[in-house]
């Protein structure tokens, strides 16, 4: 018995040695982008001109006062139409390896195209967008300035919006500063981070965005008991992709309730609890939960600079 324990411990030690580098990297303080283009993108982002009835803009669902995400469980588009999933945050989305919950867009430009077209979101088509912008002197001058052309084309719209979104990074979160050795975490936060790694959250939530770099199944251990809405199966039609989603970023997570793809969880504690049950296969103690949540709260960064700039 003792021998078995000893052997086990040695095995464990050898495993611990493999915790090599920090699996989370801090955001850069700033990112290089074309300022004029980004500003144009910013105008477009906030302008409902891009939706069919001019009721909805990108910012309608990506609320910058709500961590860049939608406070509603599912988004509401033109003519009050409901979406299927909870809009994820636009902050730091530049660092995601794919866009959308099921990763159907490979980059931001690809992503921006979809809501504009989606009948339940903005319900537009390329020609209409072009027509509207070309008859708008304000935009025409802006586009000419950026793209040196008199004719606004749809790709430019996407390009400008993507450039703006690129600028939407939230640096200097407490945790980033901790990683850089600028501040110390409280013992609770530190314990939370340790648990985060120890319990296996880190296996999926890692990298610069603490997530957003792989597809994972919700309910890997204990099955998720709700309908699989907007999962990867919808794209691939593979059984393997049932309940499979892009791992969401945990940056600014404290700001972006409700949680999960379906926006079914209202609080962070509940979300942590559910993740532990479905994906790790156990329940957390209150203490553990408290520590992890306090760690997650250190991931809230500064509002992107570009949002403070003059419109």
């Amino acid at each position: 018995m003792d021998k078995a324990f000893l052997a086990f411990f040695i095995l464990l030690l050898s495993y611990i040695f493999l915790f090599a580098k920090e699996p989370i990297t801090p955001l850069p303080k700033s990112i290089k982008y074309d300022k004029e283009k980004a500003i144009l993108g910013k105008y477009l982002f906030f302008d409902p001109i891009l939706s069919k009835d001019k009721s909805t803009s990108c910012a309608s669902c990506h609320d910058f006062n709500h961590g860049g995400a939608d406070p509603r469980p599912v988004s509401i588009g033109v003519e009050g139409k409901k979406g299927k999933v909870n809009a994820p945050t636009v902050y730091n989305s530049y660092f995601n390896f794919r866009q959308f919950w099921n990763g159907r867009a490979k980059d931001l430009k690809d992503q921006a195209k979809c809501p504009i077209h989606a009948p339940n979101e903005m319900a537009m088509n390329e020609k209409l967008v072009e027509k509207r912008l070309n008859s708008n002197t304000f935009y025409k001058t802006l586009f000419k300035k950026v793209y040196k052309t008199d004719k606004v084309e749809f790709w430019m719209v996407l390009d400008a919006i993507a450039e703006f979104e690129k600028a939407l990074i939230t640096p200097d979160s407490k945790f980033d500063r901790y990683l850089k050795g600028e501040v110390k975490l409280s013992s609770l936060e530190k314990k939370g981070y340790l648990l985060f790694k120890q319990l296996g959250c880190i296996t999926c939530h890692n990298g610069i965005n603490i997530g957003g770099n792989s597809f994972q199944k919700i309910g890997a251990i204990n099955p998720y008991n709700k309908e699989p809405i907007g999962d990867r199966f919808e794209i691939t039609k593979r059984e393997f992709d049932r309940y499979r989603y892009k791992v969401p970023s945990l940056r600014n997570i404290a700001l972006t309730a409700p949680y999960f793809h379906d926006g079914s969880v209202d609080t962070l504690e509940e979300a942590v609890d559910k993740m532990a049950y479905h994906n790790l296969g156990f329940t957390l103690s209150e203490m553990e939960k408290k520590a992890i949540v306090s760690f997650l709260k250190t991931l809230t960064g500064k509002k992107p600079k570009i949002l403070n700039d003059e419109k």
Partner: protein
Amino acid sequence: MIKTNKKIYFAAIFGSLAILLLIFFENFTKTYFIQNNRILNTIHDLQTLEAKLDYQILENSLFLYKNFDSIISTQKNIETIFKKIESDKHFKNEHPSVYKELMDYKRTLYKKIEIIHDFESVNSTIKNSTMYLSTLITKIPEINEKSDKLKLENYNKLVIKTISSIFLAKNSFDEDFIEEIKINYEHLKKFSFDKKNLKNFHSVLLSHLQVFITNFPIYTKYLNEILHNDSKEKLQKTLEEFIVSADKELKFLTLLYNILIIFYILFIIAILYLMLIIDKENILLKKAQSKLEKMARIDPLTKLLNRRVLDSDKKKLQNPVFFIINIDRFKHFNDFYGINAGDFILRYVAKALKNIVPKDSKAKFYRIGGDDFGILMEKDSLDIEKIAKDIIDYFKTHTIRYNNIDIHLSVSIGITLQKPLIETADMALKYVKKDIRRSFFIYNSNLGFYKKIEDNINRAKILKNALETDNVFPYFQPICDPYSNEIVKYEVLARLKNKNKVESISTYLQIAKETKMYEELTKTIFEKSFEYFKDKNCHFSLNISMEDISNPNTLKFVKKLFDTYPHILQKVTFEILESTAIIDYNMVREFISMVKKMGSKIALDDFGSGFSNYEHILNLNIDYIKIDGSLIKDIDKNTHAKLIVKTINNFAKEANIKTVAEFVHSQEVLEKIKELNIDYAQGFYLAKPTPFIKAEKCKKNF
């Protein structure tokens, strides 16, 4: 021939073309290497990136947790490379099959990346379960109740065994462990607990084991698919295909290179051609030069080599034989038929000589000057006499026809084997010319021709010196009346003092004539004789030659003497030398009449030796005949001579001319003279020449 400036244009155009081709070649080569390097680098980059990806996956499966970002960034790098490849027109156009291959690889790789995403999902699940199971081991239930002790002990053992199997499986990626885990799992499933904490532990354990058992085969399958994907082989194949394709392109490069080489060779040929042209011009120049040189070497009339060449050629031979061939009486032909005929003859002789002399003698032919030809050859085994005879016979048997006139030529040949060639050959030639019986002669040093020339030069010097230092003076030899022994007259004989020795002038006469000193010699002797005899009651005779008579200066001088010494003119006799032919009789006659007017007498010297012409004697009004010494000296033995002398004497008596016998050197000769009734006698037996008149009579004992 192309003009020089055209040549320059040609060269310039050719040069620029070559440079353009070179630039093109350089550019092409550069592009080729840049492009190909880029493609090669791209493929290598892909290889590296895929290897990196594999490594990262392995790392991901080994490490408990791993930042996925690195994998994503590798994928992004791969995507960037493919974007670059897809926009590379050169690649697409020049290596279409390779490009296709690479696109095929791209599909495979992207599929692999998709698998990686799937793998990440399974990997996370497996890892979470593994990790959780490791933490679960610390929560193994305590054994406190005795009733369940055995059951719990067994349970614990089984749990530890199972979890360690899981670790083994996880770390070895070996599916075989799953079977054991499955069996254990089945065993564990049979346990059931009532206690809440045990029940909870048990259900969590089972669910994690279940997850592991379900996912581990998928996990190993994906890992195998990722790590043993055929994409790497595909890429390697693409690389090889590219190298083949690039090689094809290289073939064009080689072709281009060969063209350049050909161009280069053409260029070299062009240069050689130009050089040849220059050389040709040089050759023409040299030809002109050699023509000029030839003209300096060759006699333009006969085309034979000239004297200048002979002078240099003669030094080159070891045993030289040299012929001088002279055309006899050439001056006569030239004067008679004209210069053109003379030139014709010269050309004819030149040609003839070349034909006559055997070719194998390697003889060289020269025109030395005027009508003198030279033949120079190596002695070897040649029969010199035969060659000479052949030449002479040729001209004897051939006549030249010039303007319908037949001209008979004869040549004289001087031959020598001794140096100095030209001088000795010339001597031999002169010898031939003197001797009418000979037509050629081989120079022989015993003949002393060369010495004779030296002597002549010496004599000329001595004579000149004597004349200048007043060492030429008269001696006097008595001429006697052999019957009374009375001295009737003195013959003046010129004498010369050389190194305190008095010599006869006879040996200097010839040189005097040739060097124009003869006039002065005559004048000196005449003047001194007149001066000597002016106050003596004596007759004396002076020798006067044809040269003197035909020399107006000498005649003038004689007249002056006549004016100076008029009282002794009756006592003077002039002895005209008969041995040389009297050419101009009028001149002699004039002289004789002039002298006779003054009362002087005329004697004919050396009569009977040369061209004695009795008729002339009669016409010339002569007082004395001096019979030649050669007839007198052996008159006592030679009946022929005696007969001639007798005839001359008889003729003289008839013509009323007194006779004088010279060279009376003995009693016997004197007796004969007397017997023949010759008027006067002269000779050593009677009296020797002396510088002063001493004796009254010729011989005291007479």
